[in-house]
């Protein structure tokens, strides 16, 4: 009766949960951040694949992933796979969240905290996959996942560089970064000189006013 086979989804969530919790255990910096949002429940609806996943931050060292949850969520976000991929890899999740097509209900704090904790982790997917599916299958899937993530990172960097080059060189729509920095420096320099000139003028005006004032 459900659209997705719950066993398949459970397999993916179990592997992700185990990898995430192992990584959290080994990343003491994340404990304080997670502690601040512990007890919160996030719902994530990915409209592209008609899938909803729930993330409960149980404690500062434990995160629970679920395919089904009947509790009210503290935060619920809805968006496409592309939106969430952009958010997951963003250096500025708050800005990405505002500028993306993601719909948000509730507080964004726990979502941004979790994104920042995950973004800083280098998760080893092999151990939980091997534990879940055995040595042979688990290793093959982990290897495929590593290749995919490497490809994804490479593709992202390459796409960013090519888009940037097109906008600057071919389209002439945006100035190169170095040129822009030089422009900003020049503006800064003009602003400082203007301030100094203004200050000099004010001093001279004050002196002139003092001379004109009868003793």
């Amino acid at each position, binding site marked *: *009766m*459900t659209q997705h*086979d*719950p*066993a398949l989804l459970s397999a993916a969530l*179990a592997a992700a949960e185990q990898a995430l919790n192992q990584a959290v255990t080994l990343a003491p910096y994340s404990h304080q951040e997670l502690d601040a949002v512990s007890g919160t429940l996030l719902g994530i609806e990915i409209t592209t694949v008609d899938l909803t996943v729930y993330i409960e931050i149980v404690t500062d060292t434990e995160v629970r992933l679920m395919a*089904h*949850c*009947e509790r009210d969520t503290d935060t619920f976000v809805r968006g496409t796979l592309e939106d969430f991929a952009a958010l997951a890899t963003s250096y500025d999740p708050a800005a990405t969240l505002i500028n993306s097509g993601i719909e948000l209900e509730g507080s964004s704090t726990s979502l941004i905290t979790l994104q920042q904790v995950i973004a800083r982790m280098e998760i080893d997917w092999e151990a939980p996959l091997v534990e879940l599916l055995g040595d042979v299958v688990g290793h093959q899937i982990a290897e495929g996942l590593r290749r995919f993530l490497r490809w994804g990172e490479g593709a992202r960097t390459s796409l960013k560089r090519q888009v940037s080059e097109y906008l600057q060189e071919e389209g002439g729509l945006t100035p190169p970064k170095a040129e822009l920095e030089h422009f900003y420096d020049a503006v800064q320099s003009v602003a400082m000189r203007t301030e100094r000139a203004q200050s000099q003028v004010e001093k001279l005006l004050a002196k002139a006013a003092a001379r004109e004032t009868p003793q």
Partner: protein
Amino acid sequence: MNDEATSSADRDDDTTDFGFTRVDREAKASMVRGVFDSVASRYDLMNDLMSGGVHRLWKRYTIELSAARSGQTILDIAGGTGDLAARFSRLVGPEGKVILADINAAMLEVGRDRLIDKGATGNIEVVQADAQALPFKNNSVDCITIAFGLRNVTDKALALRSMLRVLRPGGRLLVLEFSKPTSALLGKVYDQYSFQILPAMGRLIAQDADSYRYLAESIRKHPDQETLLGMMEDAGFGECRYHNMTGGIVALHQGFKP
């Protein structure tokens, strides 16, 4: 028509299924006990063999669907080695209670030891109980789970009514059980696996091909998805539905006490 519906109709013949064999109704319980006495020490290994390890995922989804929360009372019937009970113990917390029930003393012994090893103590009671006559007060339990146990019960309709009696109004029953594959091709592959490979593995690993053959046969004699759904409705459960998992090899049925 599924066999379970038939066996309810012709109850006066005093026989029931034990795998593919018809046996005396009174004898079935002790015969099932014999199977589980034989496999108790290797029960987890058996589940891994029968499901390819996927039973952990089916149980994980069962726990999610239970919506168990702090302070609740959960009854896990045919709880076997206590893997569901251990998880529920954490979810209901010290204010809640988990009752691990099984008709088989050998299974309960393994389950109790396993729970102690996992540190799951304090809020768990272990009770030897027959699902057909549960020794608990009316309206005393928030959620009942029975995972891979209903097919071994002699009178399933009686057991379902007993569960309904024990549940609080609004409480839910979750029945996780092997069922009927939704694809004919998968069904054929599954049959080959169940009747050729599984007994051979049972012989090699547990030196007990007969018990494993019974387990495969009992799965085939168990009511299919729609039949079990109808039985739950007949017993008095409301909002009944089921989720097929792994192509219908397993189904998780859910019903609420009105």
